């Protein structure tokens, strides 16, 4: 009898929907059906059935081919390579669980590595703005229950976060928003007419790269000053009308995406957006939120902040203390300057997402990929170690885009012999300790959790 598992978390985007229902085979090895998820999420679950999923590590041979090797050999290679390197770089973590992020930090400390995550190439500028200006935000339930004005600035959830608008932001009927979309005024600020912009009551089609000016104009109007007739290609009247809508809201929610972080101005755009949110709080209640990309990309920011005090670009190579200086200790910049001599890509695809020069530099040195699937990074690696998929065959905590921890579950049994990220990193750490003749430090707390049971009970 197939089993229907309810309340399952989805391992795709930052919406981290946890209302998915998955029908699995009686022996819990196959996913038969996926309900409630968007098309991308559905396919991610079905991918787990793929019979070609790698089951053993693969090591590059002198002739350039990849050959399957046992896990012990892969663990030994990874431990030795990282210890031998002067400054390894560990990057990725958008798509794995927090247990893995916590475990990898032990290796990073041991080997004096730089620890970085995908934020370095997406919401890194948002972090810079948060360092300067704070982050007046809320959980997504607040947006759902209260927001009567929703602003999407430089983001297109209809494609990037397919269920965001139906679960949290536009359509759902919340406690104080019983009429759902009817009760919400939606503003979209985007140079393109995206599918989100088409849903909006007001679409401000600004000139590309002029977000900062427009934010500034919003603030200027809100503070009661005059602005030029046209700012960033938007007529003054439209700006004034939009500001009035936001100011008269009961609860104004601003979502921003990479249209702000990766256009001219970058962190300054977010800085201005945060200031605008703060200014709005003089008149009404307003909140702002970054549209984080992957289902657990908020996770490394949280885990490493509590372990080292920084969310990303963490240089542990000094040994005595952690150091963060984006631009100096960020992955792409380090690689551009050819400053790292070992690269570990975990639960992300640096091969697809980094510019070509950094990849060329990284490729000169040992290149290791830890990922459940084949991807571009795995195919140029010297070593590819497959792991279980967090949220499909491995449970664990993930942080939704609003930093709400969601305890994901495993819906099927993992491939025999394939470890989780956490197990793999713990074994690498143990091997490192053997090689350096030191005692592993788990913290007492670790004893209970080294290999968590998969089932959750309410």
């Amino acid at each position, binding site marked *: 009898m197939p089993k229907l598992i309810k*309340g399952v978390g989805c391992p795709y985007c930052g919406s981290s929907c946890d209302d998915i229902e998955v029908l699995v085979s009686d022996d819990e090895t196959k996913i038969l059906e996926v309900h409630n998820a968007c098309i991308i999420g559905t396919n991610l679950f079905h991918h787990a059935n793929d019979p070609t999923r790698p089951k053993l590590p693969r090591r590059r041979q002198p002739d350039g081919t990849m050959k399957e090797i046992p896990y012990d050999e892969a663990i030994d290679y990874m431990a030795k390579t990282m210890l031998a390197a002067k400054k390894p770089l560990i990057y990725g973590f958008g798509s794995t669980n927090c247990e893995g992020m*916590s475990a990898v930090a032990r290796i990073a*400390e041991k080997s004096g590595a730089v620890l970085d995550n995908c934020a370095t190439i997406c919401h890194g500028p948002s*972090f810079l703005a*948060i*360092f300067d*200006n*704070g*982050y*007046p*935000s*809320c*959980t997504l*339930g*607040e947006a759902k*229950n*209260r927001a009567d004005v929703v602003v999407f600035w430089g983001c297109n959830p209809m494609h990037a976060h397919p269920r965001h608008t139906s*679960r*949290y932001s536009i359509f759902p*009927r*919340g406690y104080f928003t019983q009429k759902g979309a009817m009760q919400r005024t939606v503003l979209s600020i985007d140079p393109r007419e995206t599918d989100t912009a088409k849903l909006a009551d007001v679409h401000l089609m600004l000139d590309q790269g002029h977000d900062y000016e427009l934010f500034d104009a919003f603030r200027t109007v809100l503070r009661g000053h005059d602005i030029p007739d046209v700012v960033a290609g938007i007529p003054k009247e439209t700006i004034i009308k939009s500001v009035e809508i936001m100011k008269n809201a009961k*609860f104004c929610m601003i979502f921003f995406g990479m249209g702000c972080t990766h256009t001219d101005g970058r962190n300054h755009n977010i800085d201005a957006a945060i200031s605008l949110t*703060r200014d709005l*709080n003089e008149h*009404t*209640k307003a909140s702002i939120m970054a549209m984080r990309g992957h289902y657990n990309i908020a996770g490394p*920011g*949280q*885990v490493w*902040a*509590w*372990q*080292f*005090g*920084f*969310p990303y670009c963490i240089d542990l190579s000094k040994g*005595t*203390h*952690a150091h*963060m200086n984006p631009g100096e200790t960020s992955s792409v910049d380090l690689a551009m300057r050819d400053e790292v001599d070992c690269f570990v890509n975990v639960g992300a695809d640096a091969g697809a997402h980094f510019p070509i020069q950094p990849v060329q530099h990284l490729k000169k040195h040992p290149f290791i990929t830890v990922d459940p699937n084949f991807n571009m990074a795995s195919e140029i690696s010297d070593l590819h170690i497959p792991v279980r998929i967090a949220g499909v065959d491995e449970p664990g*905590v993930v*942080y939704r885009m609003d*930093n*709400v*921890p*969601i*305890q*994901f*579950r495993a819906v099927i049994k993992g491939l025999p012999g394939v470890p989780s990220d956490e197990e793999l990193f713990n074994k690498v750490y143990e091997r490192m300790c053997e090689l350096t003749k*030191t*005692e592993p*430090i788990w*913290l*007492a*707390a670790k*004893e*209970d*959790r080294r290999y968590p049971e998969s089932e959750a*009970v*309410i």
Partner: protein
Amino acid sequence: MASGEMIVKGGFIIDPTRKIDGDVGDVAIKDGKIVDKVGSSAKVIDAKGKVVMAGAVDVHSHVAGPKVNAGRLMRPEDKFISGFCRSGMAQKNGYRMESGFSIPSVFKTGYDYARMGYTFVMEAAMPPLLAPHTHEEIHDTPIIDEGALPVFANNWFVMDYLRKGEVENTAAYIAWLLKATKGYGVKLVNPGGTAAWAWGLNCLSLNDPVPYFEITPAEIIKGLIEANEFLGLPHSIHLHQNNLGNPGNYPDTIAALKIAEGFKARNKFGRESVMHSTHLQFHSYGGEGWKDFCSKAKEVMDYVNKQKNITIDLGCVTLDETTTMTADGPFEHHLHGLNHLKWTNVDVEMETAAGVVPYIYDKNVTPNAVQWATGLELALYAKDMNRCFITTDHPNAGPFTRYPRVIKWLMSKKAREETIATMKNSDRMIGLTNIHTMDRELTLFEIAQMTRSGPAKCLGLGNVYGGLAPGMNGDVSVFNLNYKDLPKDAEKIETALQRAACFIKGGEVIVKDGEVVSHGHKKTVWVKVAMPENPQVTRDVSQAFTQGTYTVDIRNYPVREYLAPHQSVIDVNVEA
């Protein structure tokens, strides 16, 4: 817990639970517990000429959870003043890296508390929805035993039940939530005011109605005392009052304390108080504005001293650059309006909110100097030191690593005067406070009451923590102080308390000569209430999830077992 035997020999024992004040003696430990005596093969720790006390207990400290981490994340500059770097030795032995000053990393938090001889720390505010986060941090914090207080006073279920006068339903909901979040007790933060903040409003007085819920802060406080005593939880309600930090707030403070009148503690854990009013320093101000902002510690403590069913903690300002963080969302917005530094806010659906703002307590700014004096005055006016505990509301009034400095000020008038002498506006500060006229100097015995026996009793943990009687946890701190000949220079007291000569936890040596030598065996302490099922509450809770007021699935809401390591569960049984 370490097996085997150990004896701490020949120290000056200070143990208020047994009224021992500096007698020279031994403390024997067997299998992690204090015992009467051990055999001759026991491991000997020489404490001759040193002070021996139980492991200390912190009743209120923000050390783990979403807002603490929001503070760490938004303040990279806090790492520049970490102060202590991982030594070559620590590095070689694999001790984890330490970061941060006012909001230290989890590793530094555990190590620093251990170095000061602390064994138990209560995380003061846990948003229930984000409880897995709090537990993940507690999980990664070494050595210290921890519990966490979920926040209740702005929770929709609580406000709804109490509006209808349904104390039993409130109690059933508390029982369910404590279990779901692995929480310890009932925390109230700005009752009603934080809920109002969801609409950008606040409740400054006890009688301001909460928007939509039409209930007042006074009714929430009273209702939660009733529910807490109905359940007979180990800890009383833990109250962060309304109108925090504002000039002239002390009448509101006393009014809130008066709500406790007539209630009697009902529990089997030895607790006598029904209300713990936390960081009272922030609530003991007079004046109409910042110009005449002054201390009303005397007025507040006059009331506290005669009202036996109240306990308090100080929330002493330590005159540092720090990070304020509280579930009092509207206050943080207000504070940001005063200092214009960065502001982080986290509103949590159905439950609570939180804010974070960096703050620099500058001794040359008169209101800050007044705050400093107010915190110390509260302790100097206190009559029963078993009801008055040392905190800095870490990190709000200063980091917990300044406890030894606070103790220095409390133990030495000279130290206080030296600090006053460095203040630019010392004359004005003296005119607005009483600190200059107060000659009282607390004794180490009183300090032990304020940091050990008192808080342990108030938390209902008096049978295991805070004392050295046989049967209690084998948690012992040894300090380099000669009790019969305390140093004239109070600085030396601070130095001695900052780094324990030895700290033993569960019969295991954790700190030796101020250095951490073991990661010990930490515990997560929480309270599990067994009571008959309440169909109304079960239905209400499940509807909040199924009808979509929450955005998570009810199956993913309760904290899973593996996230809370080494659980020490306190069972409470409520009769039908």
